[in-house]
């Protein structure tokens, strides 16, 4: 029976037969089938420039017979700090299956023009020239009929890379069009961190988690969302650390923790404040840290609850000079604005004192800490337990641990998506403040940040290529920084750089989308529903909006004005109709009818693309040169190279935008319309658009532009000297060597050390440099009139309002495991790793009470809208909670109706506050952002 195969016996078989030991199978030459499969022609560097954070996973892309065969993590990161695990092999299942999207059916290969109704799925393949001509004409019509502000580029993280949508904002700048603030769009904002620190974005390097002795996974589900670097948490545990999971549900990240701390949905402030109370009552707080780093020793007037300010006590006194009561000199002394070190002063944390005002009258003043003590009376572990449901003894146990251990709060951007997310985060920061838990390794809170790739920002100001021009830009930047600092010598470079952002970004056409939605997309009605807001909102939403606008708090960024209708909108690599809270309910109904044209630029079809008028096909990440957005989490510039040429007629985004600029110039000249002035008084010319876009054609090619970015970054000193696109190809990534020029980098406020993990805020704790807040300290007391009116001058607990109506379930969410937003959610291979369809997770008891079984499709509804979704039952879900992880394409749901459609996108009125120290707009920082967590819904059986 074996005779047939003897003829194929190879030399290798014979050699193996001669080996000693047991007789081996004699016909092993068949094994070559698999050996041949594992071969390739070429290897290129790749990474996945999608809005995945921190991303920057270096991959190798294996090319075989002209197509991308597969990819695999490069795993070539060096050890950063001795005694800390390395970062290899950063990646996840999405990255490992990325090539399957390249040739998947979602891929768009030719320019498409709508041939039916929007969303009908009828398309006509058109030439690039026809598509660009149509777009150019629509843009010119809009500018002529309404003004350039009617042309809007939706700010998205745009494929998470620098060579994608971000480049369209250059064309918008030249046209006088608008770019909406990406943070306002996506709401990965941490308002409570911002209120506290004057910046929302502390971001340790991922390996710093290894140093934590106690990690709270809180408002985060890293087992789903931090796949490439969760291991540092697991490894910190083997290193002796403990892990605490705080969440309403026993979510997957509870798995590998020591303690699961269930909290009722939205009650995290009560838990955090109770721990604060324990720490204070038991006297185990870090008084030195509190006095030096926070505003808790600053004096507050008893009569009007405002801080005691210099303007109160002396003529011409500063608005932003505050006071301590010094126990050594037994007198009220100025709190230094330029240095946190206390030297000979010992500020009181307790007691009541008298201050003499400039008119000679006397007022009682108390340190914030003393007021805090009173506030915390409402949060004894027993009282807090009634709110949040956590056992009082467990609260005490945890509080004591926090006071003793290096504690890191592993937070995501979940809290910021709660209506009272600011209160949650302020309470969490307060716990860290009381226990001295930031500004040293293995401690702190976490959000996201970017910086370091300065060449990109420099390019925006350049008028020609080359380093001489770079130097001119750097000189200009430094001059402005110097002028700003000269006005107030106590300012740090970080503060001056943030002022620079405040000055220039609105001029560059960056606007806050909340106002756009309010004026143009129907949200005004939602936001004025009192019953969907917190009852402590004393006036109508419109009243606050009116006041904010009248006071000019949002001047320049509340555009386009109500009388300037949007006409042409561009989106590059995003999914506006899915991402926006309220989604299709609001946008298709209120915004779409106003638009003459919606242009989608992407390499794959998505729900927004299905509702576009023109779809321009972009090259995929393995088909062009691009870089992932760098972050302090990783501190590398990571290259994705052109492994194969763009498929079909697709083109790199930069090439598309350059062609569009050329076409607009051509069509403008034809209609003799080449100059105009925008509403801000800036002149725009169209007859040299191409030259200005491409710096006289020098950077028209994507590779030339990329190289310019890299070389300018090296010149600015954040990449090693002489780094170029070519040298970057040696390892596929290069380490940054400094934070660079932007306030986001400087805001990390720690020395950039190449052989240590990064933990932010060490300049504050070690060098005593002040924070970028009104009080120059980590600020827990916000005496803005609106905050006082709301009773939120200090963090307190408030219940999440009934957004969407009075219904029994609270719908929560979070990023899923299987996709990055909608990227990969329809990847055929990844779909087999779950049920291949959207689902809502529900507690079995809740389901049983409604006669619902696993995998049954149900109807979910509230006052906003309704949708259908199958349920997945899990006892890990808290009764009363339903979870739909986000990232599903609306077109995966029946009638394309998805969970975003039941989200009213409520904005907490206090986020409209401005005109107060750090409470002023600054791109990706302080601004109103819609929320979506714990929206009220009901669940009904369908059949």
């Amino acid at each position, binding site marked *: 029976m074996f005779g047939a195969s003897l003829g194929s016996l190879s030399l290798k078989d014979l050699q193996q037969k001669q080996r000693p030991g*047991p007789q081996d199978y004699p016909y092993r030459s068949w094994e070559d089938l698999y050996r041949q499969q*594992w071969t390739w022609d070429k290897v290129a560097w790749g990474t996945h420039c999608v809005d995945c954070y921190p991303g920057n996973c270096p991959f190798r892309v294996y090319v075989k017979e002209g197509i991308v065969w597969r990819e695999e993590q490069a795993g070539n990161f060096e050890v950063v700090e001795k005694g800390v695990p390395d970062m290899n092999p950063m*990646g996840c299942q999405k990255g490992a299956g990325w090539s399957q999207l390249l040739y998947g059916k979602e891929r768009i290969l030719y320019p498409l023009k709508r041939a039916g109704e929007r969303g009908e799925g009828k398309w006509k393949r058109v030439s690039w020239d026809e598509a660009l001509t149509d777009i150019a004409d629509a843009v010119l019509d809009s500018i002529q009929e309404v003004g350039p502000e009617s042309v809007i580029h939706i700010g998205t993280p745009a494929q998470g890379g620098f060579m994608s949508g971000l480049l369209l904002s250059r064309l918008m700048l030249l046209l006088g069009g608008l770019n909406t603030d990406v943070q306002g769009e996506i709401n990965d904002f941490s308002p409570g961190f911002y209120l506290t620190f004057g910046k929302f974005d502390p971001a340790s390097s991922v390996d710093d988690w290894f140093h934590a002795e106690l990690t709270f996974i809180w408002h985060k589900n890293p087992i789903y969302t931090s796949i490439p670097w969760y291991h540092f948490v697991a*490894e910190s545990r083997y290193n*002796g650390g403990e892990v605490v999971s705080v969440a309403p549900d026993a979510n997957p990240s509870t798995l590998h923790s020591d303690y699961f701390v269930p909290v009722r949905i939205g009650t995290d402030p009560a838990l955090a404040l109770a721990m604060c109370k324990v720490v204070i009552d038991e006297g185990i707080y870090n008084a030195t840290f509190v006095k030096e780093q926070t505003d808790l020793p600053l004096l507050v007037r008893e009569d009007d609850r405002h801080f005691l300010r210099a303007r109160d006590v002396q003529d011409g006194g500063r608005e932003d000079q505050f006071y301590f009561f010094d126990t050594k000199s037994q007198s009220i002394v100025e709190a230094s604005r330029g240095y946190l070190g206390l030297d000979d002063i010992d500020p009181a944390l307790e007691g009541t004192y008298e201050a003499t005002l400039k008119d000679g009258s006397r007022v009682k003043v108390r340190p914030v800490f003393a007021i805090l003590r009173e506030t915390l009376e409402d949060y004894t572990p027993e009282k807090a337990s009634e709110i949040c449901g956590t*056992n009082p003894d467990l609260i005490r*146990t945890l509080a004591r641990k926090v006071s003793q251990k290096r504690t890191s709060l592993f937070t995501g951007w979940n809290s910021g998506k709660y209506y009272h997310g600011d209160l949650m985060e302020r309470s969490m920061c307060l716990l860290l403040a009381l226990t001295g838990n930031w500004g040293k390794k293995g401690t702190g809170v976490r959000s996201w940040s970017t910086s370091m790739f300065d060449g990109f920002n420099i390019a925006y100001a350049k008028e020609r290529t080359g380093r001489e021009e770079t130097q001119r830009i750097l000189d200009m930047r430094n001059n402005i920084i110097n002028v700003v600092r000269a006005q107030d010598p106590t300012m740090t470079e970080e503060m001056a750089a943030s002022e620079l952002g405040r000055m220039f970004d609105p001029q560059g056409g960056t606007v806050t989308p909340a106002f756009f939605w309010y004026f143009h997309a129907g949200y005004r009605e939602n936001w004025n529903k009192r019953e969907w807001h917190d009852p402590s909102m004393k006036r109508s939403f419109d009243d606050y909006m009116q006041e904010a606008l009248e006071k000019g708090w949002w001047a320049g960024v509340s555009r386009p004005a109500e009388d300037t209708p949007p006409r042409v909108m561009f989106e590059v690599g995003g999914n506006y109709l899915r991402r926006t809270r309220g989604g299709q309910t609001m946008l298709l109904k209120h915004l779409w009818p106003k638009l003459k044209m919606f242009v989608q630029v992407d390499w794959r079809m998505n729900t927004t693309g*299905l509702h576009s008028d023109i779809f321009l096909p972009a090259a995929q990440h393995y088909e062009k040169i691009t870089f992932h957005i760098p972050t302090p989490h990783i501190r590398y510039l990571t290259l994705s190279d052109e492994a194969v040429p763009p498929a079909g007629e697709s083109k790199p985004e930069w090439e598309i935008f350059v062609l569009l600029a050329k076409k607009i110039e051509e069509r403008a000249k034809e209609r003799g319309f080449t100059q105009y002035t925008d509403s801000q008084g800036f002149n725009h010319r169209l007859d040299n658009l191409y030259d200005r876009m491409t710096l006289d054609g020098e950077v028209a090619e994507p590779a030339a532009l990329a190289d310019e970015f890299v070389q300018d970054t090296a010149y600015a000193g954040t990449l090693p000297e002489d780094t170029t696109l070519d040298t970057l190809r040696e390892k596929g990534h290069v380490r940054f060597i400094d934070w660079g020029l932007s306030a986001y980098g400087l805001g990390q406020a720690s020395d950039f050390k190449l052989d240590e993990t990064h933990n932010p805020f060490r300049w504050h704790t070690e060098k005593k440099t002040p924070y970028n807040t009104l009080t120059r300290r980590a600020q827990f007391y916000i005496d803005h009139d609106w905050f006082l009116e709301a009773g939120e001058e200090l963090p307190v607990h408030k219940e999440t309002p009934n957004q969407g109506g009075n219904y029994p379930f609270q719908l929560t969410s979070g990023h899923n495991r299987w996709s990055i937003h909608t990227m990969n959610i329809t990847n055929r291979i990844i779909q087999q*790793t779950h*049920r291949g369809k959207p689902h809502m997770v529900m507690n079995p008891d809740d389901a049983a009470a409604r006669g619902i079984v696993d995998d049954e499709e149900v109807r979910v509804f509230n006052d906003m809208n309704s949708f259908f979704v199958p349920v997945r039952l899990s006892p890990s879900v808290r009764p009363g909670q339903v979870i739909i992880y986000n990232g599903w394409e609306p077109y995966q749901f029946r009638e394309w109706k998805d969970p975003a459609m039941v989200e009213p996108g409520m904005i907490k009125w206090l986020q409209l506050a401005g005109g107060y120290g750090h409470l002023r707009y600054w791109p990706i920082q302080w601004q109103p952002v819609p929320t979506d967590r714990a929206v009220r819904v009901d669940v009904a059986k369908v059949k």
Partner: protein
Amino acid sequence: MVISKEDLMKSERQAAMVFDLNKCIGCQTCSVACKVLWTREDGMDYQWWCTVNTQPGRGAPKDWEQMGGGYRDGVPNPGIIPTREECGGGWDFNYDEVFYGGKGRSVHLHPIGEAPTWGPNWDEDQGGGEYPNSFFFYLPRLCNHCTRPVCVEACPRNAMYKRNEDGVVLRDETRCRGYRFCLEACPYKKIYFNYAKKISQHCIFCFPRIEKGVAPACARQCPGRLVFVGFLDDVDGPIHKLVREWEVAIPLHPEYGTGPNVFYIPPLAPYRLNEDGSIDETTPRIPTEYLEKLFGPRVNKALDTLKAEMAKTKNGGKSDLMNMLIVYHWHELFGPFTKDPAELTWK
């Protein structure tokens, strides 16, 4: 020529793996890495040589633990062959209809054909217990490349064998006729039938990679850094230390009798909560009986060792075991298989 089953089932050395379940996050990178590398061709659509399932659960194929196979009292005990439905997966979707069909919202994306009722990871994150004391953990599974491979024993064509040099269990695909006795025999149900080629197929331990000194894709691509690879007899390697010295890595269902060479460090879990929400320090969240059912009685000693060593570092001390499990340098996972595949060239 005559070759005995005994010859086919023997090997001089044994390559093995250890999965540290306390680092596994169920991300499926191992499964997808394997899928993209080996099982994309026609007839392999539904094959997932590596799967990660949530335990407790019915797994993949559905209810595989009830399908029999393995040895009973040293005698092969054939089970049943999982059906295509019990495996699930391999779905294709109506992309074109949604994008270009001109039907608008009347159609949404879904698998073509009958609605699936099971898949390679259908019961993901469901688990057991009751809130707030629910529990689950992830279990990656692939061919165990057993020491007594009952599949080899069962093959009527003698097409299956263990490789002498590394113990990898392979099937000569040019000889296999798709009789599927191996599918019956395998108690772990990690063999699939290729409907296009009419042959059976399973994990090949990435032998073309290990021959070149490169770790298998599931191990090298695991972002959780939890898959140790090496030879069992390499006394300096992590496999030997974890399996033979520390005895913290144990096989899945040892009672099946096949001598699996994939080992697991069993899962810990957070403290259970009492009725009043206080910490219950005595009752484990994951019931001991359940872990014993999966891993046999040795699971208790493994967990005790693990906890004792963790306590050492928690109290400021040192532990060699913890150092090994931390994996300070990624390559420490891979024994002799640390080569970067991108450095290889062909021809």
